[in-house]
């Protein structure tokens, strides 16, 4: 249980998709002019991540990892299909996003209209593929943790785009120098937010936990004192 909570908070604050690893920056910059559209896109990202990361985890576990094909038969234990990861991940993502688009169009036409072009764009949003790739490279262990990672990294991205949209709405009334207006100031403000998020780095380390120290090995060196003078002299051995 504790590792779920740890992963949850770690993915939102410490390994935040936008501030720590810069995933999904293009849509982050393009959609953050108004809070309303930012919320819509953020929610879509959480949803897509929550579905695709566990799906890709299953693919990775049973198809792509070295030795994963064992369930087909013991002679397959040596196959390593890892190099197919990119194509398989992006294929699941593209399919899932297409499905999400169809579902959203059917059940909530207003949301569909407001998201417009963004839904197909989510398929190529590096945050989505990045979520799956980080899940693979960090070797997330169980399906439950994969779901947790998908949702929490989505929430992290959502927090970031919500914050920058709110700031951009207000900053229109400030005296930003003309060449910095729009894109430039967004970069700088995002950088400052990133610096702020760095402060979360100490959140899950140290604290009140007592860490059991491994017993230190004491090495005893035996030394023998030479008691007799004659023993100290080189002797010719026959």
């Amino acid at each position, binding site marked *: 249980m504790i590792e779920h909570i740890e992963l949850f908070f770690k993915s939102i604050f410490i390994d935040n998709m936008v501030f720590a690893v*810069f995933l999904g920056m293009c849509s982050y910059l393009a959609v953050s002019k108004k809070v309303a559209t930012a919320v819509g896109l953020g929610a879509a990202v959480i949803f897509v991540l929550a579905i695709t990361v566990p799906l890709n985890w299953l693919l990775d576990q049973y198809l792509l990892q070295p030795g994963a094909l064992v369930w087909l038969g013991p002679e397959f234990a040596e196959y390593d299909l890892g190099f197919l990861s990119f194509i398989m991940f992006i294929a699941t993502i593209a399919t899932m996003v297409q499905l999400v688009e169809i579902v959203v169009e059917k059940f909530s036409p207003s949301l569909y209209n407001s998201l417009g072009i963004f839904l197909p764009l989510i398929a*190529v949003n590096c945050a989505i593929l990045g979520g799956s790739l980080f899940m693979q490279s960090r070797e997330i262990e169980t399906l439950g943790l994969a779901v947790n990672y998908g949702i929490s990294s989505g929430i992290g991205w959502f927090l970031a785009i919500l914050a920058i949209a709110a700031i951009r709405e207000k900053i229109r009334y400030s005296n930003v120098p003309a060449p910095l207006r729009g894109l430039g100031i967004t970069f700088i403000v995002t950088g*400052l937010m990133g610096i702020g998020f760095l402060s979360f780095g100490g959140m899950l380390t140290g604290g009140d936990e007592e860490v059991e120290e491994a017993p230190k090995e004491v090495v005893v060196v035996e030394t023998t004192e030479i008691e007799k003078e004659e023993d100290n002299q080189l002797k010719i051995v026959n």
Partner: protein
Amino acid sequence: MGLLSKKDAKLITDPLADNNPITIQVLGICSALAITAELKASLVMGIAVLFVLGIGNVVISLMRNIIPSKIRIIVQLIVVASLVIIVDQVLKAYAYELSKTLSVFVGLIITNCIIMGRFEAFALGNGPWKAFLDGIGNALGYAVILLAVGFFRELLGSGTLFGIPVLGDPIEKTGLYSTGYENNGFMLMPPMALIIVGLIIWVQRSRNTTLIED
């Protein structure tokens, strides 16, 4: 191959400044920020994108009349993914340490919006030679920004360029360090890349005022 015609040459030079994929078209930001702590990584990433975008643009352009519109995103993704797999395997074979530094960002070239962006905006509507030049131009524009950010981050953050110490030795206190200068470790942290790109945008738009947004 003779001299490029004026229009063709423009395909290469435009993205270097006025239509830069990162600072003007706002594409390809993710990898530009994440891996630029070292100049070597920036260079390798630039070369990788050059390879993928150059060849990808030509392939898509050659296929542009036979791809049905409904599945064109999927076809584009497959072309890019295959090229990136090649890049990834070559990197893992010949530059293993570097591939560890670049980690998932090699894979993320697939979703690098520059590539999909140029496919949609150019390759689908133009012939292979022009598409190739456009791909090269945009990849070079991308690489220029990457190298600029990487240059400042590595120089100010660790006092080295391509791993070679240029300001002296920080431990022995030779060169610039003897005056009391210290490396700004903060430059190696992710947020500084954002601020440096913001400053580059500031400089670029001050010089070319037509690019200013309202």
